[in-house]
Structures are given as structure tokens and as C-alpha cells.
């Protein structure tokens, strides 16, 4: 196996609900996974198996109780679980992209700027950043007249495509995709598959949740069965 | 016009204040002279005049005046106004020193609102009556804070006031008590003199002392000290100008008062400095002599 970009070792995640009498909800147990560059791993399992939770742990959005998440960042493996927020922000800025299930629209910010933002954050000038954003929005069939509008009023599918464009704007070495095609029609689903395949050819390591079997089979080269690791009874 | 010396009033110490008090005020004055523009606190006394009538100036004058001095007192440039007359009488009676209305003859000039037109010379002392000594009071009411601002030379905020003038009136409209920077260090209120007089303070050969009775502060500008009026590069400091000359003496270089002469809009412009005007007239200078509105009517 080529050099892994993302390694998960013995990851444990439980939720302790202090507001509900301290109920403990185990979610992930002993998750171990390695993803190499150019690989796309599809997390697989029934609803409640912890797919989204694992993805959120990888992105630093959820705080695991034990285990390690090693990410190739700046030429070395950095443990997201133990990293400071400052380091995680840096990883998110330069190494690891994330396409969430829903776009968190920001009031008044035009779609094109939302897409261009990850580029701007690493210092790309406004003009080339917008150029790249425009190319992606065009590819994802968002009509030009909508680029200057804030996506809060867009349909679910349109918002999702803006979200995908944003996720692919910068060539992140690692990409996390949470149901990127859920609200899309066949044409746009194919665009997303193409984007994934192109990213893989560039050597990007991808972990995703793909509800749609066709997309999963076209984009991913192996499935990671969550059932074995799900801690929930 | 000089009134000769006479015997001081019996039962009072020379210049009303006791020697101890005068010494303590002189110490404050010395400190003020040593730190030009810095406001020195002093133990201001109750005087036989109400606050606002020049009690600060009177105490300063009382502390420095000697039997040989010749005193001139002016209010708005005139020697014959109530305030000037009563202060002059006060010192005449409590010290017996000679008094004068002639700027040239005076060794001490106590003033409210003006600096004489005739340039002061070395050895003369001008004592200003000051109502509010703190130039920063306008921007900051807390004394603890203004003292800190002086200590740290945080004076930029003074320009906010000048900025407002320009924004509102198109020019710096502050016409009296115009803030100055003394010796490149302390921001100072020149007392409510017209800004016309500000340039006279700069490198003046006379010693300039300032007394604020109610606020209990003394400050000073030693002879030949730089006094710079605040301004902007593109709105440099400028003094008042008049379209008229003095109606009485014809002076074109003095600060003019507008005097209403009748109830038909007649008015005339005359020197605010009565001694200066009188001296010029004695020397043969003559003004147009008539109220300007009437003169204009007559011309038609």
C-alpha cells in the first residue's frame, strides 16, 4: 500500500449527555482505518452506524475519547485528536477539505465568494480565486445570474452544489465528503463523480459517505464497513 | 496718566496677602516658570472680590508686586472698565504703588481678555486672569485623566475641536482662548484673549504669568519662549482681519471693537486697546471719525 495520507487508530467516540442525567451514548469503538493518496474510501453501514460521527471526528468537529487520527500535514503525520485548535485550523486551511451535508449559508455573502473563500484563506488573490470559483459553479450548473446572490434563498440542491464547489475550490490533499450528492439530479451527480475521480488522479485521499449506490460504485474504490466498529448496541 | 505712589491702607499687609501666602504663591510661580505651560496647583485664597473677577490674577500680582512697581490693569483692552478700575484701586490702596494706563510705563500689567498692542519689553510682566486653565476640559472632564494626558503629551484630541470647526464652518472658527503649545511641550489655554493676540505670546520678551483663582492653578510662559497655536497643515493658523481701520486713530493693525452708536444701525470700529489708540491720536493719527453705516449713507 502506498504511503497513507490519513490513518485512524483505535478511535473511540462516546457522547455523555449531562443534561439528560449523564446518559452515555457510545458511537464508535476501536475504529482503525488507513487511506492512501488517490484512494476513495466509502463509509458504509446502516443509519446510526456512526458514519457521520467518524467523518466529523476526522475533521476535528467531534472530540474523540481515545485513539489517534493521523493526517499528513506539512510533511509529517499530525494527530488531530491531540492537536491544538490552532493546528486543526491550519490543517483545515491547507490540508483537509470538508463538504458537509448542508451548506451553512452566511447572510449577505454571495455564492461566488463562499466558493472562493478557501482560496482567499490561503492567500490567493481575489481575481484568480473568483475565476476558479466561477469555473466550478459553471461546471455544477449554477447559472451565472445567481453567483452574486447569497445562497440562503437557493433550493436545497443549489445550496449543495455551492457547497461542493467550495469543497473542491482548493486542491486539498485530503477530502471528506458527507453525502455530497444527496439532493442532486443525475447530471450533477455525474459532475460530482467526475470531480472525485479527477481529485483521485491528483493523489487526493478521500473519505466519503455516499448514500447513492451508483455514485459510491463509480467514485469509491473500496467500502469501509462501519457495522463492525459501531459501538451502539 | 501715571498716578504717583501714596501711603498704603493702614491695617493691611502690603498687597493685602500676608507674606507667607505671597511666598507660597511665588514658589508656585517659580515652578511654573521652570516648566513653561505646566499648570501648578496653588492654595488660592478668598479675595475681597468674587471668583470670576480676576482673583487668580490678583493673587499673582499681589505676590510679585513691589513698592517700586508701576501697575496697569486692563479689561478687554481698556483701562477704564469696572473690573480694571476696581482692581487698580485695590492695589493702589493696599500697596500704594504707582498705577498707569500707559503700557510703556508699566512694569506689571494685569489683564483680562487682551494683550496690549504695543510690544512688551524685557523686564515687564503681564499677568493674565484665567477662568478655566485646562485646555483639555473640553474633551475630558476628569482632572485625573487630563493630568495624565499632559504628562504623556496626548494632545491629538485637541485637533478634534479644530477639525469640527473646519467641517462646520469651513475654517477654524475658534476665535478666543485658542489653544497653544508652549515650548514644544505643554498644551496651554492662553486665557480668553482673542486669537489675534496669540502671535504676541510667541517669544515675547516679557514674562507672562497666568492665575486661575477658582481653579487654583498658576502657569507661566518665560520670556522668549515659543508659543505655537495649534492648526492643520492645510488650514494654517490665522488671526482676525477687519475691513475697517480704527475710526478714531486710523490704526489698521490693531484689534477692533464694534461699537453701536445709535438705534439706526450706526456702528463704528475702534481700537480695543484704549492706551494704544490714545497714544496714536496724541501723535496726530486720525481715523474716519464717523460711524461706518452713516459714512456709507453719506457716500451714496
Amino acid at each position, binding site marked *: 500500500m502506498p504511503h497513507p495520507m490519513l490513518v485512524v487508530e483505535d478511535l473511540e467516540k462516546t457522547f455523555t449527555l449531562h443534561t439528560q442525567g449523564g446518559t452515555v451514548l457510545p458511537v464508535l469503538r476501536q475504529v482503525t482505518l488507513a487511506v492512501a493518496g488517490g484512494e476513495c474510501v466509502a463509509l458504509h453501514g446502516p443509519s446510526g452506524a456512526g458514519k457521520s460521527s467518524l467523518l466529523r471526528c476526522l475533521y476535528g468537529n467531534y472530540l474523540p475519547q481515545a485513539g489517534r487520527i493521523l493526517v499528513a500535514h506539512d510533511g509529517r503525520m499530525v494527530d488531530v485528536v491531540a492537536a491544538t485548535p490552532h493546528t486543526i485550523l491550519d490543517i483545515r486551511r491547507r490540508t483537509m477539505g470538508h463538504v458537509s451535508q448542508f451548506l451553512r449559508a452566511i447572510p449577505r455573502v454571495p455564492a461566488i465568494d463562499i466558493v472562493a473563500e478557501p482560496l482567499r484563506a490561503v492567500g490567493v488573490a481575489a481575481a484568480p480565486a473568483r475565476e476558479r470559483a466561477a469555473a466550478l459553479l459553471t461546471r455544477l450548473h449554477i447559472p451565472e445570474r445567481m453567483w452574486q446572490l447569497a445562497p440562503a434563498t437557493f433550493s436545497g440542491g443549489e445550496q449543495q452544489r455551492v457547497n461542493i464547489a467550495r469543497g473542491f475550490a482548493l486542491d486539498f490533499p485530503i477530502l471528506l465528503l458527507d453525502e455530497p450528492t444527496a439532493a442532486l439530479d443525475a447530471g450533477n451527480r455525474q459532475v460530482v463523480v467526475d470531480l472525485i475521480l479527477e481529485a483521485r488522479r491528483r493523489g487526493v485521499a478521500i473519505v466519503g459517505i455516499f448514500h447513492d449506490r451508483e455514485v459510491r460504485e463509480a467514485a469509491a474504490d473500496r467500502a469501509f464497513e462501519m457495522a463492525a466498529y459501531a459501538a451502539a448496541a | 496718566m501715571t498716578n504717583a505712589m501714596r501711603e498704603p491702607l493702614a491695617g493691611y499687609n502690603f498687597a493685602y496677602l500676608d507674606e507667607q501666602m505671597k511666598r507660597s504663591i511665588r514658589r508656585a510661580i517659580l515652578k511654573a516658570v521652570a516648566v513653561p505651560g505646566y499648570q501648578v496647583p496653588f492654595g488660592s485664597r478668598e479675595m475681597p472680590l468674587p471668583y470670576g473677577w480676576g482673583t487668580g490674577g490678583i493673587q499673582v500680582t499681589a505676590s510679585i508686586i513691589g513698592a517700586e512697581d508701576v501697575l496697569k490693569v486692563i479689561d478687554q483692552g481698556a483701562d477704564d472698565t469696572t473690573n480694571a478700575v476696581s482692581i487698580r484701586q485695590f492695589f493702589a490702596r493696599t500697596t500704594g504703588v504707582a498705577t498707569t494706563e500707559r503700557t510703556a510705563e508699566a512694569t506689571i500689567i494685569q489683564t483680562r481678555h487682551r494683550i496690549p498692542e504695543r510690544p512688551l519689553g524685557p523686564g515687564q510682566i503681564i499677568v493674565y486672569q484665567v477662568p478655566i486653565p485646562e485646555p483639555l476640559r473640553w474633551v475630558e472632564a476628569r482632572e485625573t485623566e487630563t493630568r495624565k494626558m499632559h504628562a504623556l503629551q496626548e494632545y491629538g484630541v485637541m485637533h478634534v475641536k479644530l477639525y469640527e470647526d473646519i467641517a462646520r464652518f469651513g475654517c477654524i472658527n475658534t476665535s478666543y482662548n485658542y489653544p497653544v503649545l508652549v515650548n514644544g511641550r505643554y498644551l496651554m489655554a492662553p486665557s480668553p484673549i482673542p486669537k489675534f493676540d496669540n502671535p504676541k505670546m510667541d517669544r515675547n520678551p516679557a514674562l507672562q504669568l497666568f492665575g486661575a483663582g477658582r481653579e487654583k492653578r498658576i502657569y507661566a510662559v518665560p520670556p522668549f519662549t515659543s508659543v505655537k497655536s495649534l492648526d492643520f497643515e*492645510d488650514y494654517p493658523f490665522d488671526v482676525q482681519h477687519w475691513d475697517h481701520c480704527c475710526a478714531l486713530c486710523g490704526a489698521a493693525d490693531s484689534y477692533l471693537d464694534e461699537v453701536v452708536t445709535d438705534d439706526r444701525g450706526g456702528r463704528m470700529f475702534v481700537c480695543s486697546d484704549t492706551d494704544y489708540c490714545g497714544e496714536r491720536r496724541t501723535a496726530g493719527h486720525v481715523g474716519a471719525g464717523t460711524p461706518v453705516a452713516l459714512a456709507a449713507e453719506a457716500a451714496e
Partner: protein
Amino acid sequence: MDAPPPLLQIEGLTRTYGRRIGCKDVSFSLWPGEILGVVGESGSGKSTLLNCLSAKLEPTAGRVLYTDRHGRAIDVWAASEPERRMLMRTDWGIVHQNPRDGLRMGVSAGANIGERLMAVGERHYGGIRREAETWMRRVEMDLDRIDDAPFTFSGGMQQRLQIARNLVSKPRLVFMDEPTGGLDVSVQARLLDLLRGLVTDLGLSAVIVTHDLAVTRLLAHRMIVMRRGEVVEAGLTDQVLDDPQHPYTQLLVSSILHP
């Protein structure tokens, strides 16, 4: 790539009022370009903390280290008062919850914006005015209000003016105390968006004290949660809000409708 040092390092910051605790043993670092949200309910010590950070209230114990433009670390409370006041006027900005605390209500908007420039020696009226106009435009205020006094402005405009007044000196660090408090929701959204754009464009760092978790979500990269003067939880904003660990944070997050 050489990592820059933190802009602000807080070590064991404590402030007591007699026997009562204002804030206790607070430590964190803030890097250039980072926004830190400080949340907690009234009386949790967040305002005390902000005052200690922004050199307005001397801490009982602990240090505030600030790295200046020349890479020099300044121990804020060990520095001389002139140095501290200079920082507050130049490198730092403070946006108060109540515009009355941060604006000169009686002087024009232009003079309010220009004051910091004049404080550092700018003496060209035309230049000051042009800069004031630039900043009015940036905070989306009508230029024809430049000579009006802030007491004639709406709450949202006053707040935008306060921001312009602070940013004109190109500060590197801005402290904000409930910047959207007391504003209508629509006005809040506009102000937040404006702030968000400005901090990104200018590469500003900021400490924002708020009890509004939505404000934190939108603006802050990281956040700390305070309760009774102590930090009970700290971390990435989305992590703290989406996976809160401390019982108090969980209560806080579950108490609002849309975090």
C-alpha cells in the same frame, strides 16, 4: 514556513474584587488573523476578562503578553503606562457594547473617525477627511452623514461608526464587547457580515465577548466558555458548539434554538 508567534498570550489571568472572583486563572493564546469568542452568561466574568486583556483593568495575577509589529513581546501590565496607552490608541481597538462608551456623541462622525489619526500626529485636514470618508464607505455609511453627530444615528449606524473609528488606525487586535447587543436581528446580521468581511480583509485578530452563540459561530475560529469566572471549556468553535463536553456548555448549547 515559519509559524508566527502568538499575537496575544494570556497566562493565569486572575482578577478578584475583594473576596469575589471576577475571573480566575484564564490562559490562552491568540494567533494573527484569529478570532476568539468568549461566551458565558452575565456575571460569568467575561467582561472582567476583556477589561484585563484590553489594559483597562489591572489583573490581580497573571500576565498578558502582546507581540508588537516588530516582533517584540510586551508584558502589557509590566509595561509603562505611556506604552500601554499608546498600544490602546494604535495597535488595538475596542468596540463597546454601548456606543456611548466608544464614541464622542457630540462631535461629528468624521471627527470621531479622524481622532485616532490626529492622536498619532496626522495634521492634514484634507487627508484626515478623505480617510474618514474611506472608512464611512467601508462600514456602509452614507457619506452625507459625515458632519452629523452620532446621537442623530441609529444604533446600528453608531456601532458601524464605532468600528470605523477603531479600524482607521489599522489596529492588529480588536476587542469587542457584545458588538451586536441591543440591535434588531436584521441590523445584527448586517453588522456581523460587515465585521466578518473586515476581519478577513484586514487580517485582524479579535477577542469577541458575547452571550450570543450564533455570533460566535459566525465570527469566531475558537471559543472559550466561562462560568463563575473560570473557563470551563475551550476549543474550536464548531467543536465546542457541536460536541460540547462540559455540562454547562451542553446546557448553554441546548438552551438555544439554532446555535
